[in-house]
């Protein structure tokens, strides 16, 4: 196995260990009594939120990479019941904030309003982490958006670069700013 992975234990761009990833301590996973499921409205919300976090530009965005669908699978299968509950409650909170601050569902907001709300949530999530609090639901959403996008085929080959069979190793090639990073090391 590649033990270099050990050195990459810090979390995904969010300053906190990856939620739903391998835990370092043995935990007791309890079976969930009432399985939480995603509705069609949830799916639309996730599509809109992820696209706001990673929008299509000259390269594809989260919607192109179907990050919302991936997120549902990941939360269902890889999150603990408690983490799932936090995630689902977070989606309700997000819609409530949207209604309170902008008078409508997230999907009905303009692109600018969406970005403003997501930026606010991002700041709040960072503050919550900095103060040592529990993981904010938006931290989960952001982690899974980045993870889902950059490990997708669209993200890995169109935003990033991937050569399936390099055939050689060159430890010192020139790099110009703007060139995409490799999808994997």
């Amino acid at each position, binding site marked *: *196995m*590649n*033990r*270099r*992975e*050990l*050195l990459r*234990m*810090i*979390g995904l*761009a*969010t300053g906190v260990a990856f939620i739903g*990833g*391998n835990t*370092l*301590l*043995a*935990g007791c*996973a309890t079976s969930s009594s009432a399985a939480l499921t995603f509705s069609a409205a949830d799916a639309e919300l996730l599509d809109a939120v992820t696209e*706001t*976090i*990673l929008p299509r*530009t000259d*390269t594809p*965005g989260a919607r192109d990479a179907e990050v919302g669908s991936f997120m549902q699978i*990941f939360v269902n*299968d890889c999150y*603990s019941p408690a983490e799932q509950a936090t995630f689902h409650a977070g989606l309700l909170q997000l819609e409530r904030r949207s209604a309170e601050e902008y008078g409508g569902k997230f999907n009905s907001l303009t692109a600018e309003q969406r970005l403003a709300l*997501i*930026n606010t949530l991002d*700041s709040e999530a960072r503050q919550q982490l900095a103060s040592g609090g529990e993981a904010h639901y938006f931290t989960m959403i*952001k982690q899974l958006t*980045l993870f889902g996008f*950059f*490990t*997708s*085929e669209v993200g*890995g080959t169109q*935003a*990033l670069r*991937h*050569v*399936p069979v*390099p*055939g*050689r*190793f060159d*430890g*010192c*090639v*020139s*790099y*110009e700013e703007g*060139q*995409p*990073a*490799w*999808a*994997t*090391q």
Partner: protein
Amino acid sequence: MSKHHYDAIVVGSGISGGWAAKELTEKGLKVLLLERGRNIEHIKDYTNAHKEVWDHPHRNRPTQEMKDKHPVLQRDFVLNEETQGMWANEQDSPYVEEKRFDWYRGYHVGGRSLLWGRHSYRLSPMDFEANAREGIAIDWPIRYEDVAPWYDYVERYAGIAGSLEGLPHLPDGQFLPPIELNCVEKDVAARIKKAYGGKRHLIHSRVANITQPKPEQGRVNCQYRNKCWLGCPYGAYFSTQSSTLPAAMKTGNLTLRPFSIVTQVLYDKDKKRARGVEVIDAETQLTYEYTADVVFLNASSFNSTWILMNSATDVWQGGLGSSSGELGHNVMDHHFRVGASGTVEGYEDKYYFGRRPAGFYIPRFRNLGNEQRNYVRGFGYQGAASRQGWDRHVAEVGVGADLKHSLSQPGPWTIGMTAFGEMLPHHDNRIYLDKSVTDKWGLPVLAMDVEVRENELAMRHDMQQDAVELLEAAGVTQVHGSDWGYSPGMGIHEMGTARMGRDPKTSVLNGFNQVWDAPNVFVTDGACMTSASCVNPSLTYMALTARAVDHAVKELKKGTLV
């Protein structure tokens, strides 16, 4: 009960078992190779070898269901989607943790040779002498010179990429060209050399990945995909499947029998020799008896020991080899997961092409010559420098197009390394049979009673501090030392439970890996190790196995083994 006879039986098909099968069959013996798990055919059965991360539904992360099924495996990084099915079933094959012990087992043809880290270093003259010099445990019955020609032999065949360094405490070998360091690593190497007056070295890691083709073995050189643990369709790293099994098959002398759990060595107490082994077919539960003139136990350290504990119990209650009082004792691993990382300024205009299955190595530099730290022995570092990827923390960018743009480009260069430290043999670090717990086949299981002790804990302080100091001396910035915590077993280098020695009263095996109480039984996996050194052990198992087979066949011809 059906009966079958072979010249030799090899139990276990991992790194050492594959070598035993190759050497025995090439010397003309008819060999039965027994493997407790399923068969995995080279290339054909590497089902995930061509998959990318996006081909896995959870992008290679473990699901809750996987974690529930693998309560031990999920403690570390090894539980993932792409190597599912390559680890022992924890429900079928439980064990008892008197103290926490992470036991990562590969129950299939090839064993952990398909999954190993491939770092391949020789033990040094100093390693073979350390126990005697320091009065720790018992002396090795052999010296470096006894093994050196066998290191040469196995390195040439397996294919080890590495560089000649001329270091007495990390002997050079028969290497293929090394896998290149990247420009930052080269620079850090030069700065370390300068800062320490040539006394500390950052060198190429020595790995069992071939950098030139081996057409005689049907193996293509490394393609730099860094997907070794999925099974290499190019045969570019050494495994049973890519290297030793095809050679053994080619002789026409090998019979491979998967799904064969060896329950005991059959012992003839009048002749003081093994007659063969008893096998339970893992699928049919039927019991078979196979006889042979010589038996090689290569079932991995703990399972070879388990077989001995279950053998000849009518003569010795504790099993074959227990007359020494040392069977199951002196468990060693390599303690690690402590080191440092930092940022390397500059090199923004440099990157790399291809994905290396390797990195750098910093050989042991502590307690050499006259130095005496507050612990004995030492440690080496494995590490790499790379540019950060999309999973880096970008404090200044929140969300949106800027975030995507920023994370789509490589980040700053970082360098990190973790130490691998020698663990001392301690009599009280032991495994034993717990008959109150049985596995799927009704067999008693092992209990683990192992802990890190004072010497390891004292060493860990240096393992972290020295890593910080080395990186800072090389001009690395924002250096952070860390101890990520270690539990015995995590190194996946179990050793020592049937150690070699000079005296049957204090050791299980003699200087040719023969069980003192049954000289036609050889144990040449990690169980035989008298001390651990700080280097990765598999290359030594290969060399000791080839050496033991050579001895076994000579003795068979002389008629001393039957």
